């Protein structure tokens, strides 16, 4: 589903060049739940942003469903993000003065769905994350865990095939983090591919696949191996 070939990303300033990603090769199949781990500044978020087409890359290629995203127009990339990819951010990124319903509705509007279709999808998503009763609340009236569940509802309401989560539990306590992870696992079981950046070894272990990045290079990509085994290799 996702194929990265010799992908590199360089951040340039007037004085220095920083290789955020070097010759990354990666294959992610449909339905996988992969955890991306690595030290701060290793390139995890950059990789996730490139996968989400929020950022360009300098070299190599990125095929999504067998088609290169290189050179796609803004409209095509926007459509691709809207229809195939859902985002979950560490700080939720909900619009503060929008109701829960309105927040979830945003990506559906950009897809041009009818109001009745939007409503149906939002209600299904809210049902899944258990916040149906709070559809008219503002984000500020919810706990952090609930806000992240709203963000998840927004991400899945458009029924994307890939969910990109950047430290989705980073701002949550352990109980709420566990609830969010359970929700992600539930979504993954429905067939949605998930790539999740995390610092938490426990969460990485719960993901079906563990990908580690160090200094912009993919050191290993293992299926169903514990983190300790990867680090020891």
């Amino acid at each position, binding site marked *: 589903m996702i194929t990265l070939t010799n992908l590199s990303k360089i951040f340039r300033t007037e004085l220095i060049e920083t290789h955020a990603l070097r010759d990354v090769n990666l294959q992610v199949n449909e339905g996988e739940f992969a955890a991306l781990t690595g030290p701060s500044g290793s390139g995890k*978020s*950059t990789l996730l*942003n490139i996968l*989400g087409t*929020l*950022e360009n890359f300098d070299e190599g290629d990125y095929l999504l469903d067998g088609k290169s995203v290189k050179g796609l127009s*803004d*409209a095509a990339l*926007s*459509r691709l*993000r*809207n*229809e195939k990819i859902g*985002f979950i*951010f*560490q*700080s939720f*990124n909900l*619009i503060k*003065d929008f109701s829960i319903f309105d927040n979830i509705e*945003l*990506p559906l*509007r*950009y*897809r*041009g769905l009818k*109001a009745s279709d939007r409503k149906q999808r939002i209600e299904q998503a809210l049902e899944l994350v258990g916040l149906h009763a709070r559809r008219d609340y503002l984000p500020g009236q919810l706990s952090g865990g609930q806000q992240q569940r709203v963000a998840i509802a*927004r991400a899945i309401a*458009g029924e994307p095939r890939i969910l990109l989560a*950047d430290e989705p539990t980073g701002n949550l306590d352990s109980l709420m983090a566990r609830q969010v992870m359970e929700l992600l696992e539930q979504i993954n079981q429905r067939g949605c591919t998930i790539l999740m950046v995390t610092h938490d070894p426990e969460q990485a272990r719960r993901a079906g696949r563990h990908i580690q990045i160090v200094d912009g290079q993919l050191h290993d990509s293992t299926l169903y191996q514990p983190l300790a085994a990867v680090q020891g290799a």
Partner: protein
Amino acid sequence: MDNLLHAFALALRNIKRAPLPYLLTVLILSLGLGMFFSNATLYYWLNHDPLPQKSHSLFYPQINSVLQPCDSCTEPMRVLSYQDVQKLSSSGIPSAQAAMFQSAGYARLPGNSDVSPTPVRLRVTQRDFFTLFDVPFLHGERWADDTARRELILSKASAERFFGRSNVVGETLRLGNELFTISGVLQDWEMLPRLYDVANGLNSARSADIYLPWETAFDLGIKSNTTTMSRDERDYSDNFAVNGREGQFYQAQFWVQLDSPQQVTAYQQFMQQLVHSEKEAGRHPRPEANRLTNILDITEHFNARNRQLDAFALVSLLFLLVCLFNASHLSLNRYLASQYEFGLRRALGCSRSQLQQLILADVAVSAALALFLSLAVAAAAMSLIASLLPATRNLTSWNPLMVLTMAGTALIACYLVTLYPALRASFGSLNRQLK
């Protein structure tokens, strides 16, 4: 439609999010636009063509007819004498021609001798005046010919002021000590700018209250209350009926209607022949300086352009640019504060063109507010200008086309103010805003 309403709802929500910066932006913009609109209004009225359907055919003839020799006097007088008018009227070429001057007097109803007479503005003229400038009649008609007659034509406002109604044809009115019959009442009519009177400078006061036949004015000794010049030793305060007609008393404006280039050429040749025959008769000692000026060139010809208003217009344009710059700066701050939201929208699948639609709705709401406020500012500014320059008092109205143009200008100004912030929002890096 649904998305359009959503875009406008968001635009209104943007006001609630940061009301002070928003209102400050709109206020600065409105000040700039208001000042610009007020000056543009005056500029428009002073420079627009008041008779587009026939302005190309209206001309002001002049000849250098003063009898005192002067070799260096190469420009004719601005106004003509009775004799000049007689000579220039004799060609038979124009389809209409009329001499005229402005005067003033006092009028009252004949039976009301105990009531103080009312001051009135007079236009002394000939019957073709109403044809030349397409003056519409409400009741009655123009004079049957140009002979002296005790008949007046009233403006509608004057008829209503004196009689309380407009249809007063056949009624009598006392002008000075003389009794006149009213032969016509005009519809509400105003020619702006009043180009037929530019010989007297920027004359944009209201049109005349009463129109008086040319020959009658001479009989009664009524003279111009603006530009008059005498070039001989006659006593024009005495026996004006004779002296005014025979002497070198210059006060008249004279307009002719020449409908084709052939007529214009023929009239120019007529003027040339007239001057040559006058020279031969010893009545044209000064250098030949015939002028035939189109009505649209008359302001420049008499150097009657109001330079103060030109300067005001330039200053207001510069002020608008400064306001646009400041509003743009405020707008940029407002948009930068929302940059994260733009990034989020784009991450969720909003394309640049969809984002521009949202911004355009924001622009439209700002423009509507700015237009409303700027019209209020413009009205206040025009009232101030009118008090400083009373001659402009009549040039401060707006027609629907002007309001539409102002709305378009407000929209463009708001778009310009938002352009840079909008581009920043659309092309900014997505990932830096989102964590």
